[in-house]
């Protein structure tokens, strides 16, 4: 239910009006991929482009507004914000991706098992999903912080525990639908083992939907990571991360509002790019 509604919001632009879809000069997936690639390149070369070290304090230059020398201004330690915002993309993209990828692998596996083997395996997975969904994911991770300490580890473990549920439900549904098809029965009758049937016939059919949802989940995962870091429970300094820069900048919101604004725009930029990729993929799977 959640997944349906979320998918609908996330890929709302996926069903273009008739006629418009024939004009496929621009593939949204391609645009999204180019936007992400551009961000990755900038994340890697930003210190060279700006000529500033993202971690270098320069108290004489503290809290400067955007200028020719510091394109996004500087923070309270005089560190160059342009460099910091783009260098932060390294950690944010990597952890955001892992925060979606790990649960995806777990969820697809459990969903396949639940749908294919049915009966009690399915029941166990679904009941487990019910329990997990009773824990709001931020609360679950904050509880984990108590056990594992603040840091990416708590975020990743929390994502692995909580976010697989949607993938499992989604994949289970698809598997149930295709399991009733004749070719699966034929494959089994022909003596193919469970593993072969699963990897050759079931998984390829279940995967496209899971991948489309995964793109939406990536956006959620990134927002989750940044929120935790903003709360001081995620990525810890000296590592450079968007949520953290926003939290530091909030102190100076009255006079230096740009400190907190730039990293937020970066998060939204990634969200738009990833969603464009999702829209492109959704169009491909529905055709």
């Amino acid at each position: 239910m959640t997944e349906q509604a979320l998918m609908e919001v996330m890929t709302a632009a996926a069903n273009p009006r008739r006629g418009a879809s024939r004009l496929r000069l621009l593939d949204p997936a391609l645009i999204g991929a180019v936007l992400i690639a551009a961000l990755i390149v900038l994340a890697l070369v930003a210190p060279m482009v700006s000529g500033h070290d993202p971690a270098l304090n320069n108290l004489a230059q503290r809290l400067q507004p955007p200028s020719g020398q510091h394109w996004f201004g500087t923070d309270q330690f005089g560190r160059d914000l342009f460099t910091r915002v783009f260098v932060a993309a390294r950690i944010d993209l990597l952890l955001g991706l892992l925060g979606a990828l790990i649960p995806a692998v777990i969820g697809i596996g459990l969903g396949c098992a639940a749908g294919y083997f049915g009966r009690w395996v399915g029941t166990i997975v679904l009941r487990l999903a019910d329990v997990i969904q009773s824990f709001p994911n931020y609360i679950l991770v904050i509880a984990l912080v108590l056990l594992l300490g603040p840091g990416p580890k708590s975020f990743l473990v929390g994502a692995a525990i909580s976010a697989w549920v949607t993938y499992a439900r989604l994949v289970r549904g698809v598997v149930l639908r295709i399991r009733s098809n004749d070719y699966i029965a034929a494959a089994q009758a022909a003596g193919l083992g469970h593993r072969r049937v699963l990897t050759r016939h079931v998984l390829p059919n279940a995967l496209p939907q899971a991948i489309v949802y995964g793109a939406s989940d990536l956006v959620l995962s990134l927002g989750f990571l940044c929120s935790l870091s903003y709360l001081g429970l995620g990525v810890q300094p000296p590592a450079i991360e968007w949520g953290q820069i926003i939290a530091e900048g909030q102190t100076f919101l009255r006079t230096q509002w740009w400190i907190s604004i730039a990293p937020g725009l970066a998060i939204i930029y990634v969200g738009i790019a990833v969603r464009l990729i999702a829209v492109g993929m959704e169009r491909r799977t529905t055709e």
Partner: protein
Amino acid sequence: MTSHRFAFIGKRIVQTIPLLLVVLVAVFSMLKLVPGDPARQVAGPRASEAQIAVVREQLGLNESLPAQFFGYLSRIVHGDLGMTANGALHVSDVIRQNAPVTALVLSITIVFTALIAIPLAMLASHRPNGVIDRGLQVMATFGVGIPTFWMGIVLLAVVALPTGAFPTGGWGDTFAEQLRASTLPALALSISVAPILFASLRSSIIEVKRSDYYTAARAAGVEGSRLIRKFVLRNAAVPPIALLAALTTILLSGVVVVEATFGLPGLGQTLVEGAKKRDFNVVQGLTLLFTVCVVGVNLLGDVLIAIVDPRVELS
């Protein structure tokens, strides 16, 4: 209501009990999952061996696991969630003191979310895939991607600081002050929740309008607000109500974040501070409270569906 509906509701209540028990076991197990000696963790790094022994006794760690669990259960039933780490306050008192802040922010958020999502969903479903509908869908897609805490900061920078009409942090003594302090946090939160309700409601209204009973009602001459209330909204409300539990988890997660952004002394702040200070009982108690809320709302959603949906499957 027919007796069928009562039977359905009763069955759902009974079905909730095992879920609640498993949730309780999970929250109880938190203590068991603490790496190292839980008594040492709770007592803190500067505690002496004797103090740790006292804590171990207090936590009942010398008893068997089932005995510990039933001890935990009976304490919860009596409203005892233990003391805060510094031993000064009962966790249940801390919750009682801070809960009104969170409750007010959440209530206003729900009002804002409904005020944003319902009219826009009706507007969008008027002409499905028309210009307005597509525009609103794209807006919803982007709205859901804006991080709640950042939205809060933007509202602080754009609304609170220049106008001075809203406080930039803290609560208030009078209800009017508290309402003002809750407005922007609630708005920030509803901007990320409203798109989900909007999307769900939009597609269910479109579906209702395609249905035979809607055509029949119109053919029978039902018009205007009566048509909207009795036929469209009532039937279209079912999928969004089914979303209620999911929306609650999103709301509870979100309120933790906006409370931090706006410096509100609510349960979310208590939880975050508790995690930072490694205050075990506070985090455990709040985790339990939030989770029981979700389970409760889930049940409430099912009961509402049984009442609202004329076609409820009573199986």
